[in-house]
């Protein structure tokens, strides 16, 4: 039993990588999907706005990438990407899991809420294409919190790498 517990460190590390990737990924796909629906509606009337609405659709896509980034950093730290798997203690694996939480949750929710701003921004651009710059800033405000979460996740994953437990 003790041995099983000790070996489950890798499992928790992997769980963390998976969690960061899929939670943020789900959030982004919901967000990009919502914005995409609004963008497609615009295209039926004003196809020349494609370039502009595409940018709005892509805004909530970044959270998924942040999740991927953290997931990748964890996989790389525990040696799952070639180079042989290290022995990971249960505590260390759980730490990786904890480190994935900020981007998993902040990414999930911020992508969804950012997409609402994006949809509204698409509405703005349809009526006033020259107000693109301002309309773009509003969804970007939401993303701030995903970036802050990403920062903590990255710093934590990097920090855990050096911890001897």
């Amino acid at each position, binding site marked *: 039993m003790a041995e099983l517990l000790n070996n489950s460190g890798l499992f928790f590390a992997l769980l963390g990588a998976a969690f960061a990737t899929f939670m943020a990924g789900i959030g982004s796909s919901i967000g990009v999907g919502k914005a995409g629906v609004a963008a497609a509606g615009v295209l039926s009337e004003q196809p020349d706005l494609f370039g502009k609405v595409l940018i709005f659709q892509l805004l909530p896509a970044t959270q998924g990438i942040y999740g*991927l980034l953290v997931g*990748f950093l964890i996989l790389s730290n525990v040696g799952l*990407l070639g180079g042989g798997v290290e022995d990971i203690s249960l505590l260390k694996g759980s730490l990786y899991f904890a480190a994935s939480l900020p981007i998993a949750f902040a990414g999930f929710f911020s992508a969804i809420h950012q997409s609402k701003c994006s949809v509204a921004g698409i509405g703005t651009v349809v009526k006033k294409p020259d*107000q693109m*710059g301002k309309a773009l*800033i509003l969804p970007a405000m939401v993303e701030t919190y995903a970036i802050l979460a*990403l920062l903590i996740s990255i*710093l934590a994953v990097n920090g855990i790498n050096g911890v001897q437990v």
Partner: protein
Amino acid sequence: MAMLKMQRIYVYALLKYCKDILEALQRRGVVEIENLNIEDSVFFKDDTSAYQAQYQRMASTATEANEILSRYVKQKKGLLSSFKGRKQLSREEYDKLVDETPDILRIAYDIISCQKNIDTNKAEKIKYQAQLDIIRPWMSLDVPMNFTGTATTRAFIGKFPGDKTTTEIVTELAEIIPEVEGIEVEMISHDSNQTCVFILTSRTDADAVSDALRRIGFEYPSYISPVIPKQREKEINKHLSNRDGRILENENVIKSYAKYADKLNFLEDYYVMKTERYAAYDDIATSRNTFVLTGYIPEPDAGGLKEYLETTFDAEVEFEEATNDDAPVKLKNNKFAEPAESVLATYSYPDHHEADPTSIMAIFYYIFFGMMFSDAGYGLVMAIACAVCLLKFKGMEPGLKRSMKMFFWCGVSTTIWGLLFGSFFGDAVTVISNTFFHTAPPNIPGLVTPIWFNPVDDPMQMLMFSFLLGIIHLFTGLAILGYNYIKYQKDYLAVIYDVISWYLLVGGGILALLTMDMMENIAGFTLPPICGTIGGIMAAIGAVIILFFAGRESKNPIIRLAKGAYGLYGTTGYLSDILSYSRLLALGLATGVIATVFNKIGSMMGDGVIGVIAFILIFIIGHGVNIGINALGAYVHTNRLQFVEFFGKFYTGGGKEFKPFKINTKHYTVKEEN
């Protein structure tokens, strides 16, 4: 860091030159005409809306004609044609084309009427086709379909739903009207949907038979041929080929106008320009023989225009300093900062009581963009792509040109940061030499090893550096606030109350923070305790100034203190502003790590031929996606740092953009000599 001086311009001239002067102003595009509202015994205003509507209609005629033309004649349009911009015409070319406009307009009308003919003929064709479909089952009928019988007989020509035999029909009829005899049912055709029949009966029984037929589902065809169906078929086919001929004829007429596509574009532009001139005419005041025009003109353009109008049209031109607040704003910056004007424009133009921050913002803009994108390879791709476009398409529209130049500088900055951080398409050089050459990569500083340090290995140092840049950025913003106080409002004390106080408070706070033990872990260094004392004193002085003077416009001392305390609460704003610069680290890491991921995936197929092909494919697609998504992120978040953190410290905006009366066309511009 400048705004052009605006002058108010007055033009007085004879009415007979009005058209020419407006044309000249439109071509030069240096005057913003202001609506002059004088109506008295001498001056009056013409209503030109009828003309405007008429010319607008002609412009849309040209557009429509060209749209129709493009349906029949394939027009060449390159992938990069949107970069080309409008074609420039010389004065002679322009005048020549203007002479041709009546002919081109006739062609435009002709094209539209041809298209109308085509549409009518196509509609007719559909009608005949439908008739043909209806009479097709009746081909073996040898009387016209409206045949009702002879003197003694009555004929019923019609159909039953579904497939029926003559026996069935006869039986069904016999069941309803057993007393009637001598009903002749002739089968014309039948399929699973309908059965077409010719029924003959004696005239005396006609009513009973008609009634019975209706009861068993008999109905007349929806189209009844007045002649024998075979003959009608011939007629219809003749009509159809006739219509086809007419359609082809009209199409050929349209196609023969293919070479006029460019001229139709000109026609559209010509009438758009004309409409706008008439709109401008609304803004001037005319008397019986003269007119007055007023507006704004940037100072450098004033002299040339005055000379031109006075010598060519005998006009009288006067200028005066535009001092009012609603005078429009035109920015003037050096080559390096000018592209960033478009970023400022998306926020707001400066008003007349503040400096144009473009040149200072541009420096930070390029730095921040480069740090977030931070890859030498990506920066090179971006800078080269922009440079090639700029060199290849000289006639590019000014707005697009500015963006291109801005992204060129962003690309340059990205390349420099990439070299400092040792990122060239991520770790592409290392991966390629390890996977395909099985050797350690050559030690090229910048491409393999960082010139400065690698943020992925040492994120804390990068974080500290980001905060440092943020503090510089914010303090620069405060400095501009102070500059505005001194230069535009002559309010020297406000500099102490609103600028220096914050320098002391925030600067002192940071100094004190750096002496704490915990900084040893985070930043890797601490300052000696004496700095803490100095910082504390500085912060305290700053705080006291803010407490007592932030609410200085209130007379009531209690409200004033309360406002001061609220001002102190602004410290939290500075804290979150500084933390916000951590995005420089986060987005920089995102670019680098994702690039590394793609390189890793690319190298997973080994070093065989398949491995090389896979690597190249994954490299191109992966880095392409990464460039797209991270350039977007860098652009948006650089804007945010400027708009929210930087402008929030000093910038009010609200100025009106200088929008001169000029040629606002889609396809052509006219070159102005001299």
